[in-house]
C-alpha cells in the first residue's frame, strides 16, 4: 500500500506549512501527480480521507489531484512525445536516447485555507 505512505508525507508537509503560516484549518490540498509517478489517484484519495480525518487541522480537508501528462524528450532528433503511448523508443526517429521530461511528479502544488 504505497499510497498510504505517500499520504503521511503529504500530511507532514502540509501541517508544517500551515503552522508556519499560523493556519488553524486547511480546507483543500492540491497535488500535482505525474502520469507515470506510480501513484494511483483513487487510492491516494481513499488513504487521504482515512488519514486526514484523524488530524484536527485536516478534518474534512479535500485532496485534489492534477494529473501531469508524461512527456519524453528524444536526444537524437530533439522531439518531445507522449511517454505512455510510445515508451522509451522515439516514435519519430526510432532512437533509444530518450529521457522523461515530465510526468514523474508527486508534489504539493498549493493548499487552501
Amino acid at each position, binding site marked *: 500500500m504505497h499510497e498510504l505512505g505517500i499520504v503521511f*508525507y503529504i500530511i507532514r508537509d502540509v501541517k508544517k506549512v500551515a503552522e508556519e503560516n499560523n493556519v488553524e484549518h486547511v480546507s483543500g490540498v492540491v497535488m500535482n501527480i505525474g502520469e507515470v509517478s506510480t501513484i494511483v489517484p483513487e487510492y491516494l484519495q481513499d488513504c487521504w480521507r482515512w488519514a486526514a480525518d484523524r488530524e484536527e487541522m485536516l478534518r474534512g480537508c479535500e485532496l485534489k489531484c492534477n494529473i501531469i501528462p508524461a512527456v519524453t524528450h528524444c536526444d537524437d532528433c530533439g522531439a518531445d512525445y507522449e511517454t505512455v503511448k510510445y515508451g522509451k523508443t522515439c516514435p519519430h526517429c526510432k532512437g533509444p536516447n530518450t529521457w522523461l521530461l515530465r510526468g514523474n511528479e*508527486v508534489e504539493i502544488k498549493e493548499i487552501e*485555507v
Partner: protein
Amino acid sequence: MDGVKVIEIKKSIFADNNEDADKLRAELKEHGTYLLNLMSSPGSGKTTTLIRTLNLLKDKLNIAVMEADIDSDVDAIKIKDATGIESIQLHTGGMCHLDAEMTRQGLDNVQLQGKDLVILENVGNLVCPAEFDTGAVRNAMILSVPEGYDKPLKYPLMFSVCDLVIVNKIDVMPYFDFDLDKCTEYVHMRNPKAQIIPICAKTGEGVDKVAEWLLDEVKNWKNK
C-alpha cells in the same frame, strides 16, 4: 470562493527526505561507516544472500545489519544465529519502505564506533523503496530468477537507482525461461554503470563476487 486563501507550495514530497538523506550520508562519512541499502521483492533471497556474504566478510570488516521486515524479528535473529553479527530489527509500522529518518532512528541503536559497514535489508517491495533515499552510499538489489528477466522494464526506477544487481536462484534457471543476456541489456538501459552478479545463495555459488564487490566499495569509499 469566498474567504479561501491559497498558499503556494510547489514542492516535491520527496524533497525533505532527500535533504535528510544527504545529511545522514555526510554524518556516516565522518564516522567512516559505509551504508548499503539492499532491496528486492519479498522472498528474492535478501536474508539468505546476506548470511552468505557476511560470513565471507566478517573477518575483514566490522559489520552490522539492520533488518526492516514489516512486522517480525525472524530475519534479525536468523542473521545473528548464522553469522554472529550484530543485527537489529527495525519496525516500519506497516510502511512499505524506509526513509532517511527511519534509517537514522535504526542507526541510533547500532554501535557505530569502529563500524566499517552497515547493511540495511529494506522492505520487500520494488516500488516504494526506490523512491526514498535512505542515506546509503549505494543501493543494491536482488532479482531472483522466478520473478522473470523483464523486471527492469516494469520497475525502471528501482533499476536506475541500483549500482549492483544480484541475480539470485540461478539453480532454478532450467525451469524458467530466464534470459540473462536480455536481463543485462534491460538493466543497462536503466543504469549503464550497474554491475550484474549471478549467484545461488542456497549453495553459495557466485557469492564471493558479491563479497569482493562490497569489500572494494568500502575500501575505495574510505580512501576518498
